[in-house]
């Protein structure tokens, strides 16, 4: 078959399992074990995309997740997924991939005109160019730029068919990040101690750099076997540690193998939240680019990537590759290619001599020492490489079809930096080296600036031993096994940029050039963080990993300071792009938020209730599926004229016991509870310490040292926390016990003129006004169930609230319905409840909105005059007591047919100007013709009888309204006391 560049047997590829795939419509063939990148290279496909800004042809630059250029769209069963690095995308049978950011085709791309006019598109060009006209940005420039720039296309695939996802919480003594030579060595030592160890590796197999050197196979195998024998060590392959979040918390993303994915219903990625005592960062080092003219032509590839493509997949990066490197390690790629029979065009090395260069010469490879690459010929692929002297004079033009580049290696220190690592500049290797504080962990191997596999392994053994000692689990010293010796190497000769004609990129994904950096400096953006934002250097999805230090060095040169003084860019989480679905985990759709169901949920459902979500609760809104007010008003009418019953089980209920219970309530409530008689209830309001209202509710005294406190549904959790906080801080000396009993008790309101007659047959109590008056409370048997009876009313009618253990809810509810049948009793929902309480002028969360005071709501008479309570002092501040404050009033439209709306602004009828207040609640009324509402109105109590406009700009409506007292119904409370 035609895979011209597949020249050897790869470590991971299986020649017996060919796979067909499509790229930009071309039918191609690869092997099982390939990545899309290796399969494309094997087919001789060099150009795989167009660049972000200039639409320049781009090829494959790396062989790993750090890839800046070879990002593709994959079109599969789940639609189009953009921005997947071809270098980590496993090849699967039938894979369909497309290149990005080109139109109409990859080779003939109109956007590439941008490259020809590049003089007009320097860094910061939008800030300067698109200044005027003012409308131009939104209508003209941005749409144009959006079309021209960018990477892949996103197609929404949200909905019930979205991918499954899950989050797994995990714990260990030590997390080792990276299973290369250092990570494996450390794992070997730590695993032997019995400590719980997690070894996370982003690759699909452990080994790291040892996978590229055949001499290390035996060590890798024996170490791997030892690791498998440790019961407390677990390996997470295909797992990238995404970020370090302090206190030993790390996030990691695992890509599932095909078998695991099938077992978990198609789950592709699993998010791990790891909590560990220590971390060992063996994250390796990344090879860096050199900035030279046209260092982005397809065929320019990092030397280490070429070695990976050859060793892992048997693919040659070129038939006639040249190497441009300033360090000995990079030569290994060329040696391996040569050994595989590839003819090497030559080496360009800025150093005068080196051990590796001598080896190359011995192999018959031409070495051009003390030289650099001054230009690359070719647009869609490398054709020639122009070699120049160090002073810029041309020396020689080499014919080559690939240029392998290496500017040295930079430790991968993103996680270390997030953990507050100190970074020290190490001149001999021209790089930063991170060091972690011992209580957090250690860095080992090439991430620690160590060169060579054997040295890295030894560093790993040492780090493992040191961590074992830190964690008080030292073990008997063992001799490290014999390791294949590292080749002797000549030191790196730092080289960052070769200046010449043409664009020299420092950030390939965001198309940032060395000239852009100098422009930034000229314009005053000298600080690294300013330069970054001005040029967008390092701000693409690859976070500029292969050019990060390069950019700093170019900046340093432009400013005339050493590289060490520019500082470093902070790599932030995530280490690689993460699908939102993986972050959301399983907390989506049905599991997005818990649903709180009333004890009678099933009954409400069978009675045809329409449910409404209020907070976490599902509550019956109305017992009808019909829209409109008719069923609501029917339910409300039952209460006003006969009797109705509603489920108020979602109200917060807190049991308060102890010798000091009454004292505690006196302090947390603005009114007094110590004077409340046993067997009585009282309406109470709580303030925050700043003097504003926190919540209201009814509190009952069951015994001298036993109260039941109720809260609004919305505030049940926050009031409990508020009370628990004060119990242990400002009231720490009191004897009081608080218990949340919300879920224990079902509670129903039985309301209406017939309520007493419905209840009487079910209790052995005398319910007469004299024996059981308004605000009376009793613990009694109700319908054969031990319960609590409260004579309290929210609807404004004669009413009882009855609480029974939730398990007996249906027994009681059914008994009440049966007993009420002769009065045509009706269950009523939240809408009818709202109608009833608005007519009565009772407040709820709409008015207790965190901005109102007791005085605003007409409750100032409840504030006790004697004794301290939360909010007492600050409630008296002038700003909270002035008469212009928004005060609670009732509102009715002047024209009975006019509709009121929540949120309408109240303005003066003549010369409407600034808002005087707004409607908080509105309902169709039963007692009055048309609508009624409650409003918060500036100086409201002084405006009773006035006419204002209720304006809803959203609906373009203005309704003339009359301002009334909020107590629109039965102001004397005769009904509730009847």
């Amino acid at each position, binding site marked *: 078959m035609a895979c011209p560049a597949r020249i050897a047997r790869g470590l991971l590829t299986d020649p017996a399992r060919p796979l067909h795939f499509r790229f930009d419509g071309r039918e191609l063939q690869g092997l099982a074990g390939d990545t899309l990148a290796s399969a494309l290279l094997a087919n001789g496909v060099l150009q795989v995309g167009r660049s972000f800004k200039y639409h320049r042809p781009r090829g494959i630059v790396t062989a790993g997740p750090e890839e800046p250029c070879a990002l593709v769209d994959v079109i599969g069963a789940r639609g189009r997924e953009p921005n997947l690095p071809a270098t980590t995308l496993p090849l699967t049978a039938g894979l369909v991939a497309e290149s990005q950011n080109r139109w109409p085709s990859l080779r003939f791309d109109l956007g590439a005109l941008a490259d020809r006019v590049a003089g007009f598109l320097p860094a910061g060009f939008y800030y300067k160019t698109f200044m005027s006209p003012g409308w131009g940005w939104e209508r003209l420039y941005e749409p144009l730029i959006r079309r021209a720039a960018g990477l892949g296309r996103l197609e929404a695939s949200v909905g019930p068919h979205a991918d499954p996802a899950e989050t797994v919480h995990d714990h260990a003594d030590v997390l080792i990040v990276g299973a290369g030579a250092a990570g494996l060595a450390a794992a070997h030592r730590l695993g032997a101690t019995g400590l719980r160890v997690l070894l996370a590796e982003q690759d699909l197999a452990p080994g790291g750099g040892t996978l590229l050197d055949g001499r290390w196979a035996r060590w890798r195998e024996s170490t791997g076997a030892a690791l498998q024998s440790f019961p407390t060590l677990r390996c997470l392959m295909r797992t990238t540690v995404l970020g370090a979040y302090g206190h030993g*918390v790390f996030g990691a993303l695992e890509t599932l193998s095909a078998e695991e994915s099938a077992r978990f219903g198609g789950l592709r990625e699993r998010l791990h939240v790891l909590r560990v005592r220590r971390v060992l960062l063996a994250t390796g080092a990344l090879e860096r680019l050199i900035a030279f003219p046209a260092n982005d032509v397809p065929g320019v590839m990092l030397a280490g990537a070429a070695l990976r493509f050859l060793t892992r997949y048997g693919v040659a990066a070129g038939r006639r590759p040249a190497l441009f490197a300033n360090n000995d390690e990079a030569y290994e790629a060329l040696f391996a290619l040569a050994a595989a029979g590839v003819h090497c065009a030559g080496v360009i090395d800025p150093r005068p001599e080196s051990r590796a260069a001598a080896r190359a010469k011995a192999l018959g490879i031409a070495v051009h020492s003390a030289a650099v690459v001054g230009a690359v010929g070719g647009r869609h692929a490398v054709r020639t490489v122009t070699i120049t002297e160090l002073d810029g004079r041309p020396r020689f033009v080499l014919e080559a079809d690939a240029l392998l580049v290496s500017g040295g290696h930079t430790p991968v220190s993103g996680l270390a930096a997030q953990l507050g690592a100190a970074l020290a500049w190490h001149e001999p290797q021209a790089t930063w080296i991170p060091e972690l504080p011992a209580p957090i962990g250690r860095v080992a191997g090439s991430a620690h600036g160590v060169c060579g596999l054997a040295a890295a392994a030894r560093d790993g053994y040492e780090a493992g031993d040191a961590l074992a000692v830190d964690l008080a689990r030292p073990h008997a010293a063992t001799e490290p096994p014999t390791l294949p010796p590292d080749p002797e190497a000549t030191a790196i000769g730092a080289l960052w940029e070769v200046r010449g004609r043409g664009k020299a990129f420092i950030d390939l994904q965001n198309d940032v050039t060395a000239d852009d950096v100098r422009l930034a400096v000229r314009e005053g953006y000298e600080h690294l963080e300013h330069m970054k934002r001005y040029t967008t250097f390092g701000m693409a999805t690859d976070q500029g990993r292969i050019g990060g230090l390069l950019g700093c060095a170019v900046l340093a040169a432009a400013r005339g300071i050493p590289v060490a003084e520019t500082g470093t860019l902070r790599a932030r989480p995530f280490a690689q792009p993460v699908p939102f679905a993986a972050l959301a985990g399983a907390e989506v759709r049905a599991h997005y938020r818990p649903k709180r169901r009333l004890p009678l949920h099933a009954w409400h459902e069978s009675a045809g209730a329409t449910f409404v979500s209020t907070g976490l609760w599902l509550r019956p809104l109305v017992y009808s599926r019909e829209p409109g007010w008719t069923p609501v008003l029917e339910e409300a009418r039952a209460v006003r004229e006969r009797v109705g019953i509603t489920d108020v089980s979602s109200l917060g209920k807190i049991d308060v016991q102890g010798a000091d219970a009454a004292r505690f309530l006196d302090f947390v409530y603005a009114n007094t509870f110590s004077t409340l008689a046993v067997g009585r209830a009282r309406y109470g309001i709580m303030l925050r310490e700043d003097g504003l209202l926190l919540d209201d509710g009814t509190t009952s005294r069951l015994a001298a040292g036993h109260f039941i406190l109720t809260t609004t549904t919305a505030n049940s959790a926050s009031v409990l926390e508020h009370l628990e906080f004060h119990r*242990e801080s400002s009231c720490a000396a009191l004897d009081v016990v608080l218990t949340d009993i919300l879920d224990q008790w079902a509670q129903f309101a039985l309301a209406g003129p017939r309520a007493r007659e419905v209840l009487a047959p079910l209790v052995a109590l005398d319910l007469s006004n004299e024996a059981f008056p308004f605000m009376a409370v009793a613990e009694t048997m109700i319908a054969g169930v031990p319960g609590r009876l409260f004579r309290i009313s929210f609807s404004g009618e004669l009413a009882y609230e009855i609480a029974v253990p939730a398990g007996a809810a249906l027994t009681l509810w059914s008994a009440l319905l049966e007993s009420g049948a002769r009065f045509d009793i009706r269950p009523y929902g939240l809408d009818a409840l709202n109608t009833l309480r608005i007519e009565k002028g009772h407040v709820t969360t709409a008015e207790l909105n965190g901005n109102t005071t007791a005085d605003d709501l007409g409750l100032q008479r409840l504030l006790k005059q004697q004794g301290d309570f939360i909010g007492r002092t*600050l409630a008296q501040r002038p700003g909270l007591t002035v008469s212009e404050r928004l005060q609670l009033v009732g509102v009715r439209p002047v024209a009975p047919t006019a509709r009121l709306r929540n949120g309408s602004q109240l303005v003066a009828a003549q010369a409407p100007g600034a808002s005087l207040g707004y409607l908080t609640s509105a309902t169709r009324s039963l007692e009055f013709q048309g609508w009624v509402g409650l409003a918060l109105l500036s100086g409201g109590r002084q405006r009773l009888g006035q006419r204002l406009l209720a304006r809803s700009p959203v609906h373009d409506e203005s309704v003339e309204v009359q301002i009334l007292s909020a107590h629109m119904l039965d102001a004397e409370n005769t009904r509730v006391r009847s």
Partner: protein
Amino acid sequence: MLRIPCPWCGVRDESEFRYRGAAEARRPEAAAGAAAFNAYVYERDNARDWHCEWWLHVAGCRRLLKVVRHTVTHEIRSVEAAPGAPGAERGR
């Protein structure tokens, strides 16, 4: 993310706790006046330093903890039960 060693429950994630503000501030006496309460409710140093603060362990023991945390490094120096509260002396 903070991991807070609760004296009753052991080390737990920050998400199990509710932050309840600075713990040094003591509630003034009832008659202390508006200025004292204003300072108590609103005035904070917001220093780059060790900070003593209340955390309520709502998802665990529901007890109030006094935590000393560094506002820059987030290092936690000490955690103790709210002093004087019932059972506080027995906190681990």
